[in-house]
């Protein structure tokens, strides 16, 4: 029995002889398709969908970024090649620079806060009793699960100028403290969603609220995989908690943190729906980010899809760099890929 198993296992790695081996044991009626082609047939439908819906449009987008695609082209006229005009246009447009700045600053703030808060909560849950831990997990998963559109609506309501609960709570700050911190004491009627800075403040709070649970749950899964003997040894040696975190927990969780960082960057760079709902569409030009700016250019009237595509190319290039780092990490960690 063991013998057979190991023989089969061995067969997995070096393909050709194994297949012959299997045929010897279970002769099959010969088919018209050779065995080697089977995986390709299984893969074909999925690959066709990916090629048609993801790869071809991606290619199209790059082509369109060098073309003029206006209302006539949308109606079916052939696109006109304009060279690098679209790129020159966006680089000269101050809105491009403000949306690039918004995108980057937002991503930096949201990613770092998400990671810090998520890690702290993960560490906390790890130290709680079973019942308490499960309660906290249920709570944070509820936050994680809310559809982004619904989340944006909820936070709009919480930050509402007149009836919002945030303004109500801020009124409870002692007047002197509120004056000192914000230069005001009466918060009723404070509109949060008029000014780019406060729009992004709300967006950061909302996105962090939605994404820290994933970090916390992943960190928790990582913590559970660290052998407890390491901690016991450290404790016997009299290490402080901070030292234990720096010398054991952090190094052991490094691969988890690496993946979480990259995934968070990718997600936060292309945040669209939440910002769209917060502003009711691309209404505040100064508060656009790259994806909303691309959308606004492409679907305004008259449409400027070529310019929109050029902005999307810039965003995709940024994400591609981050993605390549991510892929390197995964290829390093998963033996299954090679």
């Amino acid at each position, binding site marked *: 029995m063991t013998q057979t198993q190991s023989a089969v296992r061995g067969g997995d790695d070096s393909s050709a002889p194994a297949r012959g081996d299997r045929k010897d044991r279970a002769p099959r009626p010969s088919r018209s398709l050779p065995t080697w082609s089977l995986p390709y047939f*299984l893969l074909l439908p999925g690959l066709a969908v990916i090629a048609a819906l993801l790869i071809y449009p991606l290619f199209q987008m790059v082509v369109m970024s060098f073309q003029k695609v206006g209302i006539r082209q949308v109606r079916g006229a052939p696109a006109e090649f304009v060279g690098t005009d679209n790129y020159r246009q966006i680089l000269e447009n101050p809105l491009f620079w403000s949306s690039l700045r918004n995108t980057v600053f937002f991503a930096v703030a949201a990613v770092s806060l998400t990671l810090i808060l998520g890690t702290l909560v993960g560490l906390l849950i790890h130290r709680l009793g079973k019942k308490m831990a499960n309660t906290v997990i249920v709570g944070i998963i*509820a936050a994680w699960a809310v559809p982004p559109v619904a989340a944006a609506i909820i936070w709009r309501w919480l930050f509402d100028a007149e009836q919002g609960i945030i303004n109500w709570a801020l009124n409870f700050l002692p007047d002197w403290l509120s004056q000192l911190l914000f230069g005001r004491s009466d918060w009723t009627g404070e509109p949060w969603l008029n000014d780019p800075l406060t729009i992004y403040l709300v967006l950061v709070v909302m996105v962090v*609220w939605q994404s820290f649970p994933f970090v916390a749950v992943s960190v928790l899964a990582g913590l559970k995989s660290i052998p407890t003997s390491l901690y016991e040894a450290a404790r016997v040696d009299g290490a402080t908690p901070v030292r234990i975190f720096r010398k054991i927990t952090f190094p052991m969780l490094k691969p988890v943190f690496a993946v979480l960082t990259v995934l968070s960057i990718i997600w936060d760079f292309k945040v669209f729906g939440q910002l769209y709902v917060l502003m009711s569409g691309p209404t505040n030009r100064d508060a656009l980010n790259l994806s909303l700016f*691309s959308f606004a250019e492409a679907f305004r009237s008259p449409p400027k899809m070529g310019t929109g595509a050029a902005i999307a190319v810039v965003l995709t290039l940024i994400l591609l760099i981050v993605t390549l780092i991510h892929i390197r990490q995964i290829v390093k960690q998963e033996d299954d890929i090679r």
Partner: protein
Amino acid sequence: MSDLTAERLRTPGKPHQTPKHLRKGAKRTRTVARLRRVALNATGILVFLAAIFPVYWMVASAFKSNEQIFTTEFIPIPTDPTLDHLSRVFTEGVAGNSIWLYLRNSALVAVSTVLIGAVLALLAATAISRFRFRGRTSFLILLLIVQMVPAEALLIPLFLMVKRLGLFDQFLGLIVINVGLTLPFGIWMLRTFVAAVPRELEEAAWIDGAGRFTTFWRVLFPLVAPGLVATSIFSFITAWNELIFALILMTDSTRYTMPVALQFFFGQRGTDWGAIMAASTLMTLPVIVFFMLVQRRMVSGLVAGAVKG
């Protein structure tokens, strides 16, 4: 181990008395430990409340009377619960249709996406986990790359493609696009489930003379089914939440999905917060239930090999 030692220190020594100064120290340790436990639990409760409050506030507002909604006071629980908002979103609805229509549209799009996507993902995942073939590594890396492509980047070309194919305002166009958006991660997630089914089982069926299809259908499929469910729920949630393509491809208000329809509550004559919270609750609850079911598997799918065990 260390707990045991601590326990032994704590229990007043029966066989031989612990020296007095040691007992005092143990008492202090015990108080510190209890204080620490209280502090930890308090923080846990705080995190729980902070995370769940916005969700609770949505549900609570959906059942509050307008008097309790449009006030500058803080009313923690709806003391005069009403179903007015809920019935209003069903009867009056928004953008000229009952919310029921949008829920149905969303469900139609999401379920179709899941059904088509599940078949494609299962075939591709079987190919990846059961065969070593030329191009396998390239395919896996391709999957990772296309997963990261922002939907906004595909929006413009896909919009033109859908328009040229005459699929504008058709559910089919939206469904196909959702399949494309969910497939890479679906395959990526499902592949680990297929790989987890011991190959020996298939070998055994093989030896018993079962054909390739029978082996797949009677042996592999039932064992992969839980993974298929998890992957399907993930796709369902993604399609259910999708905003940007539905926004662009559906201009006929009878074809709106939930995320698009929700936008129409804003504007006009002020915002009807009761109605919008009722509608948001309807959209959110199924997702929360599904999420609780598959959360663990989503984590393992996303952080891949970074978490072992």
